């Protein structure tokens, strides 16, 4: 029997792979959205939102939304059982 360590992806189903692909694409897009040429479109002082300049609010929103996406991915992994050691949190 083959006992070599296996990467997670090798035993994933097609729908599970799609979830990882979507999450990867999301984080690459966020990475790009903080830099030239995307961020200059949002890098402005007004309007002030939650008291912050618009460009700072935009970045803060990316942090919060990305936290939500990562949390959703984690919860999905726990529920679908693809995560190891889920019993010992």
């Amino acid at each position, binding site marked *: 029997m083959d006992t070599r360590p296996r990467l997670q992806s090798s035993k994933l189903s097609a729908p599970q792979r799609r979830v990882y692909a979507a999450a990867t694409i999301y984080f690459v897009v966020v990475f790009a959205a903080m830099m030239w040429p995307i961020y200059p479109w949002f890098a402005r002082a007004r309007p002030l939102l939650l008291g*912050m300049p618009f460009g700072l609010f935009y*970045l803060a929103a990316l942090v919060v939304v990305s936290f939500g996406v990562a*949390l959703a991915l*984690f919860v999905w992994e726990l529920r679908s059982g693809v995560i*190891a050691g889920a019993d010992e949190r």
Partner: protein
Amino acid sequence: MESWVVVSAVTMGYLLLSLAVGLASGRGSSKTTEGYVAGDRSLGFLVMYFIMGASIFSAFAFLGGPGWAYSRGAAAFYILSYGTVGLIPWYFFGPRVARLGRQRGYVTQAELFADRFQSRWLSAILALISLLAFLPYLTLQMQGAGYVFEVVTEGRVPAWLGAAIAYGVVLIYVYGSGVMGVGWTNTFQGVFMMVLAWGLGLYLPWRLYGGVGAMFEAILERAPRATEMLAAPGLDAAGNPWTWGGYSSAIAVSAIGFSLWPHYFMKIYTARSEAVLKKTIVFYPTFQIFLIPIMFIGFAGILAHPGVTPADAILPTILMSMQLPAFVVGLFCAGALAASMSTGDAIVHAAGSIMIRDFYRALFRPSLTDAQETQLIRIVVILIAAVAYYFAVVSEMSIVLLLLLSYGFLVQIAPVLLATFFWARATAPGVIAGLLTGVAVVVLFDRVPSLQWQGIQPGIFGLVANLVVLVFVSLATKPMAEEHVRDFVVT
């Protein structure tokens, strides 16, 4: 009682408490190197969470963050940006690193790469690159700690003595407790700093302007060059508008380099399980968001205290001008010390482990016993702290020049990581040649700024050269045995 006495007493009390927590925490772990360096791979979520949080809470963030916002405006936003995605790569490769570490006994970053490429030289080169990246960073943390002491005691305790006291405490608990000391003091210090950052960041704009929104309105109406200050890319160090190339590449280099810092990478091995590791990564942004109130502190100084130099002194300057109770000022000073120490302790601990395991043992003494090794690590921890202390208080050399190179060097490890997991054809000569070329290009572009097209950071040019050389040299050399490689490469 004079106020400096109260402030000093609070600060000293805090240091003693850190020492007690640090020493008490090492008692549970085993006496092996695995216990000293990787905490017997048993760390739970809470400690992991605060160890990673300490990566944000450094002396740089506490003093430099407000300083950047104060003098360079929106340029400071880059510090907030890179952390958003900086730890995400761990989510995808971290569990695999942890699993290989458990199976094959790694406790450092270079051990993984040296095993994959079967090369002691790769291990030694990575150890030296890590040390080059660590030293300036550790030096800055020590300078920050010394500076805090000097301000607190109104010069009665000079910076050299202050740095010696704070890092004396760090050495005692790192020497005694290893990674458990680092973990539990960071937990204690992290809670303290979170409360302080949010408290000050919201209180100062409210006290000086009546609120955060009112503060930014006032800056937009009255500050010179207000629009450039409040919209990225902000200003450069000389006060001129920063380039988008400089701003964007600073984010790119920092985001890529962040997950590769050897002292944080090593913490992957300390997690008790995959779930703990992933949960730490998911909750990391709850720490990172603290940079927003930290930046508010700097913005609050723009109209209230124009012309403060160096800009990093803006936070102490505002605090001293507000006639706050001595007890509160003491708490702030303790917080700044906590920021410095919680970053510095992880670095000295990692630097000691890396120099002994990845450099000394790999090249000269493969037969080292566990007890000898742990003892040597402890000695090197003290040596490295002494060297950093020399740069921090004795040497006249500007360490900031080296600091700029830290991330440039770190980024050069990214191709090694990619080749380890994703390219079976990569060879040891390939990754070593790539690494050395990348580092050389970073130094060259740093020395000759006119080469930096569009103000792009040297690390990016090094990365490109590194990747090209890695691919060509690997293809020109003999492939590694498939049997060995398939244990690592993602299929």
